[in-house]
């Protein structure tokens, strides 16, 4: 009975995933057979999709680079450093942050964060402008891919923090005591007995965060004034797949609609590839996971 229910649930997930993939492929097909000149940009699907794939990856990378260390640090503080009362309060706050709708983050990013980042961007352009990613002139509105990445980081942070906190709390006391009894400080104990135990969990949490960052539409659409692909992170320009679909889909018809669905298919494949890599990284150290 139970095994039947479990099997059914598992089969349902695979079936739904397959149906989604099938829909994406079938609906995307006209794009690939269409005359390259008719595709947006006029040079075929690849030159249309390439810049926004890169834009998506840039925004997601910025988000994870900021959110992962901070999220893990917040989780460690809650699980191993904060006094118990403070830890509980902080835990609730982090869980609440994860529940805020993305449009709220988008509105905050567009109305507050972007304008307060104008001055720092100008400073970066002036002093570090020789680095291509900080090349000027800085955006006058602050609505750049870097701002979008920061907003995404703020959105992803609570997900990473609250998932990794749960993993850190489950780190076996047995091994933590072993480390302490060898004369480890609290930080050394965390490095010996907590972080190795939590490694797979941290990667999973980051992947879930990445999923949100890759697929986020509203916040990016509100915060980024999009444009063609450029290297500088502090000028307006760049676009992400999800925001492109959200902005253009309502008015799309015919080939343009198939084009956007094809873009969705590409996003789907990116997510799939990222998850498979993560799975592979987790499994590589299976022998030392402590599961045996």
């Amino acid at each position, binding site marked *: 009975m139970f095994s039947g229910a479990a099997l059914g649930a598992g089969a349902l997930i695979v079936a739904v995933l397959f149906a989604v993939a099938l829909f994406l492929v079938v609906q995307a097909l006209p794009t690939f057979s269409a005359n390259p000149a008719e595709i947006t940009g006029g040079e075929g699907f690849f030159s249309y999709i390439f810049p926004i794939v890169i834009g998506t990856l840039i925004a997601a990378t910025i988000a994870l680079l900021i959110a992962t260390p901070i999220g893990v640090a917040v989780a460690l503080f809650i699980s191993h450093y904060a006094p118990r009362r403070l830890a509980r309060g902080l835990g609730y706050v982090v869980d609440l942050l994860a529940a805020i709708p993305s449009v709220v983050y988008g509105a905050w990013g567009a109305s507050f964060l972007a304008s307060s980042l104008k001055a720092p961007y100008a400073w970066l352009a002036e002093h570090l402008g020789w680095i291509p990613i900080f090349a000027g002139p800085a955006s006058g509105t602050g609505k750049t891919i870097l701002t979008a990445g920061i907003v995404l980081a703020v959105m992803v942070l609570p997900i990473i923090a609250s998932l990794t906190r749960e993993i850190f709390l489950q780190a*076996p006391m*047995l091994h933590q005591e072993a480390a302490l009894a*060898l*004369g*480890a400080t609290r930080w050394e104990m965390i490095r010996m007995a907590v972080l190795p135990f939590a490694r797979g969990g941290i990667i999973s949490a980051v992947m879930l965060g990445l999923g949100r960052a890759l697929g986020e539409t509203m916040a990016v659409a509100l915060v980024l004034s999009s444009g063609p692909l450029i290297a500088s992170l502090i000028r307006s320009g760049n676009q992400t797949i999800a925001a492109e679909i959200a902005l253009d889909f309502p008015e799309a018809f015919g080939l343009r609609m198939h084009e956007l669905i094809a873009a969705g298919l590409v996003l789907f494949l990116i997510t799939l590839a990222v998850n498979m890599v993560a799975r592979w990284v987790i499994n590589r150290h299976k022998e*030392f*996971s402590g599961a045996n």
Partner: protein
Amino acid sequence: MSKRIDVSDLNVYYGDFRAVEDVNITLDAKSVTAFIGPSGCGKSTFLRTLNRMHEVIPGARVEGKVLLDGDNLYADGVDPVTVRSQIGMVFQRPNPFPTMSIRDNVLAGVKLNSRRMPRSDADDLVEKSLRGANLWNEVKDRLEKPGSGLSGGQQQRLCIARAIAVSPDVILMDEPCSALDPISTLAIEDLINELKDEYTVVIVTHNMQQAARVSDKTAFFNIAGTGKPGKLIEFAETATIFNNPAEKSTEDYVSGRFG
């Protein structure tokens, strides 16, 4: 190195609850001292206060003195981290680090203290520690394999190797054989007999035959009832405790008659 421990007027509290009352005891260098007594009598709690591991438990605190060759472990400015690197501990359940190889497990404590160590020195230390724990011949061909793949008894000896690799003055053992089969237990007991040539060994055990086999002196702890603090009832040569104890309650306990 081996050092003597003098405990005077030690009380242990969990919050407001006094768990152990007024312990005065001297643990000789290069000898094995066993703590016996019924469950909940505070012997494990007391053992933990000897290397300040009780501080891991929220609300636990200590009043009194523990002198390691005259130096008070609870003096102001003494870092518990330093205390624990001098006084090693082996736990009830074997706990090698599951994410580390056998070799890295042995070196885990050493790497904390001295960051860089030539590979040949590290190899020598691994061999010496594993030989010291009577484990070398069993694992020398699979040092890079995970420590969690060993049997329970081997894991416990790996934990002992890990503890002696940092060359402590004292080794505390909290019921080290309670999760092991009789043959592994025998291996650990033989090892304890060898360890006392170099270290001060303190062992908590529920197995009175074990206390009689391995220890030079035995301390009997007891509680008057639930909610009362544990006390040190009697401390003497092991032969005296088991054959001719001074206290009635000690005699009742070692002969299997309670109350």
